[in-house]
């Protein structure tokens, strides 16, 4: 499984000289499965670059949306493959009692916010509510579960070739909970992240910023570290960077996160900050890692 980060920023695109290294595009992670199948996790502005980089057009492409906040879907109408008739795009996302996934996405892909409507997209696009049970895409087993954020929001786990990727970009598991004390089965998202080869997790706020953002649906760095330790993930990337955080601030935030990780007994390479365009090759292992339930 190959993972490439096309957008690591949270909330709103933040281009500029001060964010050039960690990137200004919003959430999008490209995943190439062991058989070459392509997934996109979220469709923030980063998916525009992903679409342009797809030299050999995949016949079928899956987009797994965690939720429908704008920083996770804004790139959909700028995703080049969506404007090619030969492409089949399968969009997965959270169910809502209010309206179907298609109808909720259509609120963005319609006037006056968009010059095109969903029905005008030349590609073959379909929309699916994620099932509660695990399902398969190509050689991968996919699992989605609701996680603590504002509104219906999913985290994902992808198991392929004996490695696992957990993607929980918008997550506040510490809301009203002590992550160091709580039983594991009572921690939001932990079942997805358990023993993941790579965990991509919300780390939006510095610890000092969190008290003013309690309930906004995001994690402080310390909470993200606590979550990653409880999950025993092999490697964790702090993701969904605050738009106000410059590269220099993120360097410092990352330094302190690594320091804390080591203080708690981890290896310094076990935690890092997500950086736009960074790539990760997850190892192929003989025995598949059984996903936690």
């Amino acid at each position: 499984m190959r993972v490439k980060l096309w957008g690591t920023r949270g909330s709103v695109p933040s281009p500029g000289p001060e964010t050039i290294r960690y990137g200004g595009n919003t959430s999008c992670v490209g995943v190439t499965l062991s058989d070459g199948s392509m997934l996109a996790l979220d469709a923030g502005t980063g998916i525009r670059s992903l679409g342009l980089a797809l030299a050999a057009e995949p016949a079928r492409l899956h987009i797994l949306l965690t939720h429908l906040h704008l920083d996770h879907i804004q790139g959909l109408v700028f995703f080049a493959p969506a404007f090619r008739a030969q492409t089949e795009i399968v969009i997965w996302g959270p169910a809502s009692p209010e309206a179907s996934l298609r109808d909720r996405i259509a609120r963005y892909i319609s006037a006056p916010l968009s010059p095109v409507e969903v029905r005008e997209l030349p590609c073959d696009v379909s929309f699916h509510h994620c099932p509660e049970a695990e399902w398969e895409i190509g050689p991968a087993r996919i699992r989605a579960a609701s996680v603590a954020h504002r509104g219906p929001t999913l985290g994902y786990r992808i198991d392929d070739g004996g490695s696992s990727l957990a993607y929980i970009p918008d997550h506040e598991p510490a809301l009203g909970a002590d992550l160091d004390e709580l039983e594991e089965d009572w921690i939001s998202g932990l079942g997805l992240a358990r023993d993941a080869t790579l965990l991509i997790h919300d780390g939006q706020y510095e610890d000092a910023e969190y008290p003013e953002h309690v309930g906004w649906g995001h994690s402080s760095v310390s909470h993200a570290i606590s979550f990653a330790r409880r999950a025993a993930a092999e490697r964790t990337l702090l993701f969904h960077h605050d738009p106000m955080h410059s590269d220099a601030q993120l360097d410092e935030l990352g330094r302190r996160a690594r320091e804390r990780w080591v203080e708690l007994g981890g290896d310094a390479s076990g935690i890092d900050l997500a950086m736009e365009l960074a790539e990760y090759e997850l190892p192929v292992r003989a025995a598949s890692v059984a996903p936690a339930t």
Partner: protein
Amino acid sequence: MTQKPLELILARNLMSALSTPAFLVDEGGVLVFYNEAAGTLLGKRFDELGTVGPEEWGSMFGPFDEDGEPIPYDELPLVIAVRNGRPAHADFEISSVDGTRQRVEASAFPILTAHGSRGAIAVFWPAAASNGTGR
């Protein structure tokens, strides 16, 4: 590890912060949590008791009707909420661990999601502090 559904996790987190006695059952009717205030009412903390299966918790602390007779399990608000997916209310007496009886009002409501029922919550209120209207 079997992950609890998010709705139960959030309910527990909220209940943990309340001073109103509150009880949480999962979709199978298993009592999976009650808060400190409920523990005070019952005379036993949840961590001393642990999860309790359906039927069993219904008889642990009563409840009793106005004639002192045990109320059938099927008629408890929490059971109605989780089984029928609708809110329910009742007043009754409960017995704490030391045998003290207290009259309370209980309101229960189901936790329904796009994927169906996740369980139910009941909150208790001392009957003396309310204008109870009976079962």
